[in-house]
Structure formats: structure tokens, C-alpha cells
């Protein structure tokens, strides 16, 4: 692509002197606010069960179990694309990557619209699931290393802003979807196909704006007045580890489990939050209030991404994850007690803190990777570590649902069935705490020699220059 479209080459997006680095976070947000729509996909589920019947499901209409696979496939391909495209993203640069993500995510909606119009579910699996999922993964990873290059002094804050956008994307996507479906619905249509078309176009345009706006700093650029610390923290390296070499380090796998366990515990409780608050406080918390609780959780999920990642710039990444795990163990163990005490306020507070740390875990990991493995391949390594998210996305809900059903089958009351689950999630966090404890600086044998670092930079730029 860089050979055919020189406009997209890395060399063409090197920032001119005087460029304000604060233009880069909104470029990243322009992408993440779009792809974050994935978390709001469920608003389409009910209307999609009535595509034929319109006012109610007809015999040939899709079932919820059939539709549930659309989101699952998208998340699987998010993980796969982030993992396998990571190296390519580092090579081609953020403009190509973000534009590719725009084509995939926007195009996925259009293919899905065709699937709704033709009532062919495989087109939705292919469209939103496979193609859109690839857009999710590439779009998620592509701005990260660029932000870290622009903000060496505030790695956590900068990546936290972008990844906060992923959380915020659902808050835009959900009401936008409802608004558009309402506008397009008629006596003969639930309005989903046209909504997909409009949203696909909007998201494609917005992500392209981000791709056009993104810039890379010139070689040797530093923030005005910033000097790298003379005695950097032990876990902050000035060396670089190659993306393939990183897989051979214990630090990569320890970090993988840190993310997987933090996300598993969080996903496990997010899924049951609404039901849990209603069953634990039966008669006091209505379904509407529970829905409000879920909304509040999404706000804290989003806010936690920015707040905790920014805090990690001062606390250090390892300490921040210590806080996630230690405080998390305490909170998970406390939640059942708040139910027995009858305190809705304490229950809500515990959950909101837990969810803020769930988001914070996602947002802090890129800066942790940059600290431990250096910045040269941070995007690619980040993409590979995100497979932990995919694993947790499957493992978390399965574990929670299995545990709950096992207890109910053995006579445990529904309201009490969550207690053991929360204790087991707390135990997972103990393991996560230990994994974080064992993370040490990478052995120098894994570091790239300086001439190899220079060579890989030159190859990347030469590939871009050939396009011109």
C-alpha cells in the first residue's frame, strides 16, 4: 500500500517543527471513540430478532443465541488482528494502520447492512464479526506507539486518553444507534440496515480524520524543556526488545497473565452486576435502577482508564498494578458482605472502584510494556499481549456462569450464589498480584543492539521513501 499510496507513508507524516503534540491525542480519540461502539452492539440484538416480524419475532427471525455470535466473533478477531498485525503496524506507521482500520470497521458495517437486507446471518458474522473485528484490533493498537513517542514524559496519560475513548465509544454508539433506528423504522422495517449504513459511513469518515491528522515526531524530538531522568526507575529501560524476542522473555508472559487475570475478574463481575444487585437487594433495587447502575459502571470504566493510567506516571506501573490487585482482592471479598449488610451504597461503591480498575488495567498496560520492553516495538508487543483480553473474554463469563449454575444446582440460594464467585475472583487477583511481583527488568541478552535498532528504523523509513 505504501508503494502505491505515498501519501500514507511514514515519511510523509513526520511532523514539521512547531507542531503541537496535543493534536495527536484527538487523532487517536477520533479512532477509539468509533471502535468503542463495539461495546454497544447489543442494542441491535432485540431489533435484529424482529427483522421479518417487525413488531414481534417471526418463526424465521434470528434468535438471540444466533445473534450473540456476532459480537463474540468481533472480539476474537480483535485479538487475532491486534496480535498478528502488530508487526505490520509498526512497519507501515499509524496513518496506513488507522486508514486500514477505518476501511475494515466502516466496511464491516456496510457488509452487515447487506446481511440484514438479505437476511443472511453469515454476512453479519463476516461483516461486523470478521472484517469489523479486524478494524477493532488494528484501530485499537495503531495510535498507541505514536502517543508514547510524543509523550515520553507522560506515557500513561497519553495512552490512557486514547483507551478512555474506547470506553467512551459505547456511550456515543448506544444512543446514536437508538436514534437512527428510530428514525429509519417503519411499518416494513426495523431500521437496522439503514442504521448500519449510516454508522458505517460516519465511523469511516471520523477514523479517516484521525488517520489524516496523526503525525510522527522527527528523530530525536523531545518535549520542550524535558530531560530524561538521570537515574530512571529500575523497570524503565532505555533499550529496546524486538517483538519476536519479547515472546521469549518471562516478563511478556507474566504481563500477559497480569492483564488476563485483571480482565477475567472484571469481566466476570460486569456480566452479573445487574442481576446481582437486583437479587442481592430484592425489592429495593428495580430493573430500571439496575440499568442505571450499569450505566454508572460504564462511566467509571471509562474514567478509570484515564485516571489510573495517568496516576501510573507518578506511582510507577508496577505499583499501580499492585494497587489494582491488592485493593481488588479487598473489594471483591467485601462485596458479598455489603449484600448481607443490606447496604446498596457500599455495594455500588465497591463495584464502581472494581470497574475503574478493570478499565485502568487496560489503559496502563501499553505504558508498562514501553517501560519494560522499550518503545521500538511497543505497538506490536501490545497487540500480542491483547490476546490475554480475548482469553479473558471467553474464560471470565464461562467461569462465572459455571460457578453460579453449580451452586444453584447444589441448593445455594440465588442471592448467595455470587458469594463464592466473588471469592474465587479475589483468588485470581492473588495470582495476578504474584505475577506482577515477579516482573523484573528484562535481561540484557534480550536487548536489541543499537545498530539493529538504527537499522530497523532505517528500513521502515526506506520502505516509506520508496513510495515517493
Amino acid at each position, binding site marked *: 500500500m505504501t508503494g502505491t499510496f505515498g501519501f500514507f507513508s511514514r515519511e510523509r507524516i513526520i*511532523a514539521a*517543527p*512547531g*507542531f*503541537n*503534540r*496535543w*493534536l495527536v491525542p*484527538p*487523532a487517536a*480519540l*477520533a479512532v477509539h*471513540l468509533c471502535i468503542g461502539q463495539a461495546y454497544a452492539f447489543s442494542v441491535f440484538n432485540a431489533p435484529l430478532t424482529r427483522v421479518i416480524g417487525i413488531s414481534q419475532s417471526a418463526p424465521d427471525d434470528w434468535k438471540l443465541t444466533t445473534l450473540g455470535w456476532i459480537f463474540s466473533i468481533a472480539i476474537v478477531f480483535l485479538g487475532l488482528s491486534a496480535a498478528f498485525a502488530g508487526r505490520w503496524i509498526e512497519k507501515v506507521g499509524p496513518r496506513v494502520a488507522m486508514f486500514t482500520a477505518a476501511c475494515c470497521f466502516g466496511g464491516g458495517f456496510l457488509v452487515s447492512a447487506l446481511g440484514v437486507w438479505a437476511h443472511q446471518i453469515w454476512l453479519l458474522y463476516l461483516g461486523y464479526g470478521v472484517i469489523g473485528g479486524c478494524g477493532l484490533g488494528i484501530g485499537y493498537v495503531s495510535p498507541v506507539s505514536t502517543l508514547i513517542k510524543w509523550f515520553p514524559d507522560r506515557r500513561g496519560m497519553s495512552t490512557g486518553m486514547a483507551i478512555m*475513548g474506547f470506553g*467512551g465509544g*459505547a*456511550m*456515543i454508539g*448506544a*444512543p446514536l444507534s437508538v436514534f437512527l433506528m428510530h428514525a429509519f423504522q417503519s411499518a416494513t422495517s426495523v431500521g437496522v440496515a439503514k442504521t448500519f449504513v449510516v454508522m458505517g459511513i460516519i465511523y469511516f469518515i471520523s477514523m479517516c*480524520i484521525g488517520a489524516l*491528522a496523526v503525525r510522527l515526531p*522527527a*528523530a*530525536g*524530538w*523531545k518535549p*520542550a*524543556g524535558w530531560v530524561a531522568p538521570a537515574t530512571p526507575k529500575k523497570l524503565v529501560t532505555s533499550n529496546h526488545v524486538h517483538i519476536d524476542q519479547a515472546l521469549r522473555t518471562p516478563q511478556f508472559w507474566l504481563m500477559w497473565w497480569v492483564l488476563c487475570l485483571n480482565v477475567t475478574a472484571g469481566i466476570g463481575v460486569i456480566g452479573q452486576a445487574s442481576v446481582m444487585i437486583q437479587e442481592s437487594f430484592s425489592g429495593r*433495587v428495580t430493573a*430500571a*435502577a*439496575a*440499568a*442505571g*447502575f450499569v*450505566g*454508572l459502571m*460504564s*462511566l467509571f470504566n*471509562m474514567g478509570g482508564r484515564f485516571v489510573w493510567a495517568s496516576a501510573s506516571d507518578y506511582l510507577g506501573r508496577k505499583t499501580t498494578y499492585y494497587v489494582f490487585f491488592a485493593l481488588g482482592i479487598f473489594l471483591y471479598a467485601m462485596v458479598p458482605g455489603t449484600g448481607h449488610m443490606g447496604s446498596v451504597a457500599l455495594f*455500588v461503591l465497591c463495584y464502581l472502584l472494581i470497574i475503574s480498575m478493570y478499565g485502568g488495567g487496560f489503559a496502563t498496560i501499553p505504558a508498562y510494556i514501553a517501560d519494560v520492553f522499550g518503545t521500538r516495538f511497543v505497538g506490536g508487543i501490545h497487540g500480542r499481549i491483547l490476546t490475554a483480553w480475548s482469553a479473558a473474554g471467553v474464560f471470565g463469563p464461562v467461569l462465572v456462569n459455571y460457578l453460579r449454575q453449580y451452586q444453584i444446582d447444589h441448593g445455594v440460594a440465588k442471592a448467595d450464589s455470587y458469594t463464592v464467585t466473588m471469592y474465587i475472583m479475589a483468588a485470581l487477583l492473588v495470582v495476578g498480584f504474584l505475577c506482577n511481583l515477579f516482573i523484573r527488568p528484562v535481561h540484557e541478552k534480550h536487548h536489541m543492539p543499537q545498530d539493529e535498532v538504527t537499522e530497523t528504523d532505517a528500513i521502515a523509513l526506506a520502505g516509506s521513501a520508496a513510495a515517493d
Partner: protein
Amino acid sequence: MAEIVPRQHGNGWLLIVFWLYVGIPLAWGVLSTLGKSMALFR
């Protein structure tokens, strides 16, 4: 390597416009979610 210190000029209006471009939809989404969240306190 030589330190390149960018002069911060000429980006003011673009900065404001771009941050408003992402900030306004985000604020709308947050307020919309906050409104629904209030059901918890009723």
C-alpha cells in the same frame, strides 16, 4: 542526537477545533449515560 524543540505557534485554532470535534460527542455520550444512571438514585 540534536534536540529539536518545536516552536508552538499556528496550531491554536486547529487544536481547539480538533478537541471540540472529539470532545462534544464524548460529552454528549457521557451526559446521556449519566442521565440514565440517575435511575439508580430514584
